[in-house]
């Protein structure tokens, strides 16, 4: 492949997992060049990359990786910021000035003296970015830097990148799978597929061009909501990119005779609650504040309930209490008509409850997926044949047969999530609790997850999902709840829930709410626009 990036450009690279995005990006940073056979030449400022001196190479090309934690080298924030400059042998007063400057730019001075362990994920990633920028690079390479962050921290991070590009003219190459926030600020977008650049265009042209290239391409689903809606409704080459532009597009082009989609929502759900929490109160220690302050929730059999809420609001704690890992000091969790505390642990976590933690890597113990799955046999006490059979049944259901021989850590974020879920399913639980199942999962894998959830639901499994991901919640839930200030403040079917929210709602809803009611997913918006039809004067013009 051949391509060039101009000084001061903001380039976004996307593609399916395994398309070679990360490899390409690592090739651009000499120190991180992967092992293997390389042909062709990379030029940086008209000089061969491999002929640069070490100092320039380390200094002028910065690289930020995916996991916030593993990039942090030292124990104190100030030392971390100085680390790169120490390596370059800068004298103390230069380091002092540069570190001060960068800490100010990033607003790090408030936590300058802290231990790096005490920082939140978003702060850690910001620190990683700052400690690369302190070396004053000319080019910044980022490999999915926001995939491990919650949406708010991710947005802040992208905003800073925008600021760096706009105000300082820094050249940025960003590999990213969540395109929603980066499309409006990118200058150019590259789409990679099995090691080739198959598309290269301005962000507003990507949608149209990709559709013309292949109108069933997987990556069409990964485009921002606005672009996806536009793609389905129009054949124009220039698509809107922001909510503002999307709103205008709908107002200008579509009638509003029909305001509401007629939904044939099947409330065939079993209305008997399988799990009920009554007035739960919880705190970790006697002197610490309450995290749960009178939570009431009931989950029916075969239902997918999503609990949304901000960062650090206590959602994870709620899952721990509901799944019996922690015990509430007031109130009860009732499972199938019996108090949770009355169950024996061995009975509870076998064929009844399973919990998928936020960090799915903690699920895996062995060096291949298959061996790891076999671990469950020790718990289930079945025969070897029965175990093998159930492993293959699960692998088939999740279509992960090709992953069974791999090391769990070598899988992509989406694959890890699905494989971990598979391990839980071997325990044949009736209720599955999932903590942030879409963290680090790309858009296409999210759709696979959704299909999987629907399959499981059809099998009668009950699921309780805790997430930040508003878009995903709108796709999967039977009911949504907002967790705030230690309790669940509102619940409802996703359509009512999001339609009633002004700020805490999906992008599709934000685009369409001024004209239509209760459209929360891109599909809803597309359907209702098609139903209403194009405005008359529009047809005359074209």
């Amino acid at each position, binding site marked *: 492949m051949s391509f060039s990036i101009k000084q001061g450009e903001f380039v976004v690279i996307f593609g399916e997992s395994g398309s070679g995005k990360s490899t390409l990006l690592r090739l651009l940073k000499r120190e991180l060049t992967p092992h293997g056979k390389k042909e062709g030449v990379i030029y940086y400022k008209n000089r061969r990359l491999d002929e640069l001196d070490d100092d320039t190479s380390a200094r002028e090309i910065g690289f930020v990786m995916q996991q916030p934690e593993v990039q942090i080298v030292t124990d104190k924030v100030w030392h971390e910021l100085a680390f790169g400059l120490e390596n370059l*042998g800068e004298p103390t007063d230069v380091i002092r000035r540069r570190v001060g400057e960068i800490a100010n730019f990033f607003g790090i001075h408030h936590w300058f003296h802290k231990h790096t362990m005490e920082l939140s994920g978003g702060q850690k990633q910001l620190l990683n970015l700052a400690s690369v920028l302190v*070396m004053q690079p000319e080019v910044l390479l980022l490999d999915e830097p926001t995939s491990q962050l919650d949406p708010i921290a991710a947005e802040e991070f992208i905003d800073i990148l925008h600021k760096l590009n706009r105000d300082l003219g820094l050249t940025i190459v960003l590999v990213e799978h969540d395109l929603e926030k980066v499309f409006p600020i990118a200058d150019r977008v590259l789409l990679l597929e099995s090691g080739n650049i198959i598309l290269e265009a301005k962000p507003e042209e990507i949608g149209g061009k990709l559709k013309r290239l292949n109108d069933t391409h997987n990556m069409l689903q990964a485009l921002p909501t606005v672009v996806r809606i536009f793609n389905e409704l129009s054949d124009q080459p220039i698509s809107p990119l922001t909510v503002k532009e999307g709103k205008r597009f709908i107002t200008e082009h579509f009638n509003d005779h029909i305001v509401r989609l007629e939904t044939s929502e099947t409330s065939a759900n079993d209305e008997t609650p399988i799990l009920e929490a009554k007035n739960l109160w919880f705190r970790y220690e006697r002197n610490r504040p309450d995290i749960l302050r009178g939570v009431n929730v009931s989950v029916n059999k075969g239902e997918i309930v999503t609990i949304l809420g901000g960062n650090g609001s206590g959602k994870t704690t709620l899952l721990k209490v509901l799944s019996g890992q922690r015990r509430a000091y007031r109130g009860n969790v009732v499972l199938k008509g019996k108090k949770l505390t009355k169950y024996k642990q061995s009975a509870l976590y076998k064929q009844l409850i399973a919990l998928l933690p936020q960090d799915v890597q903690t699920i895996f113990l*062995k060096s291949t997926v298959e061996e790891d799955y076999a*671990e469950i046999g020790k*718990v289930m006490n079945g025969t070897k044949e029965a175990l093998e059979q159930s492993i293959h049944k699960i692998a088939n259901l999740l279509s992960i047969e090709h992953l069974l021989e791999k090391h769990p850590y070598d899988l992509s974020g989406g694959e890890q999530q699905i494989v971990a879920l598979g391990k839980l399913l071997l325990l044949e639980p009736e209720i599955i609790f999932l903590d942030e199942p879409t963290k680090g999962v790309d858009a296409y894998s999210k759709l696979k997850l959704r299909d999987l959830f629907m399959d499981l639901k059809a099998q009668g499994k009950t699921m309780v999902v805790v997430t930040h991901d508003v878009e995903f919640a709108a796709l999967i839930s039977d009911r949504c709840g907002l967790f705030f200030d230690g309790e669940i403040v509102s619940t409802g079917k996703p359509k009512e829930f999001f339609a009633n929210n002004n700020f805490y709602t999906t992008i599709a809803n934000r685009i369409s709410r001024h004209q239509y009611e209760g459209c929360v997913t891109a599909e809803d918006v597309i359907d209702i626009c098609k139903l209403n039809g194009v405005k008359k004067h529009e047809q005359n013009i074209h």
Partner: protein
Amino acid sequence: MRGFATFHPFVLFLYYAMVLIITMLMLHPVILVLSLFGSLLFFLTIAPLRQFLLDLGFYFLMFLLVAITNPLFVHKGETILFFLNDDPVTLEAIIYGFVIATMLVAVIFWSKSFSEILTTDKFLYVFGKVVPKSALVLSMAFQFIPLFKRQIKKVHEAQKTLGLYTSNSITDRILGGIRVFNSILTWSLESSIHRADAMKARGYGLPKRSNFSLYKFEKRDLGIIGALFVMFFVIIFAYIKQYFAFNYYPAISDFTDTKQYFFYFLFVFMLTILPFMMEMKENLLWTFLKRKISASPIRNKKNVS
């Protein structure tokens, strides 16, 4: 902790070295009392009152325990007070017990303020100056150990809900523990590979590495080092000249020497009270400054205009 702690880490290190040497070397009751007095006063200024009182209570008990243990085992000395199980209990042994206990408690309180004041950063910095490579290694260790501990906890919790520990047999539990440990090792190997990449990307391994620190060596640091050395040498001089000699066995010395060499004890007093005085100076300075700030003529003028 504004006054003494703001000195350069080297100064702090030097100070504690001197004070501890003097406290442990010279078994003179006056010096030990001075040292204990100084350490307590200083700890009082930097620790919360509640903690100070709790510690004081606890170490007072320890003090008594040490003090009464000595006469039970040591029977030297000429003033026999009474017999316990046919063993003589002497006045000298009792007094020596109290002296040793004083020394112990003084050392403990110095160490307590030491750990409050010489935080890990400062400690690392001083170490790094002596052995440059060690600074980074230690700093990385302080970064990684808490991370490692947290990961163990996370895996443990995750495996619990997977039924790993649900069997009641002990062997199963131990085997489960081993499996968790194995997976943590893989995890730490994995993350150390990434960390090595991140370090390389930021130029680690280039030949001319420097060591950065937040600490500046100021004029007042030089001043205090000078003063410390003067005090220390005077005290050591007096020690070598036997001015601080004090006998416990067979009979206890009197304090005529102490009166005669009063001048030298003054130096010990100055040395041990120094951190406390620094804190006090700073406190006074701030009260004074605050008054000045609130009565600032500029602001008054502004109000008028």
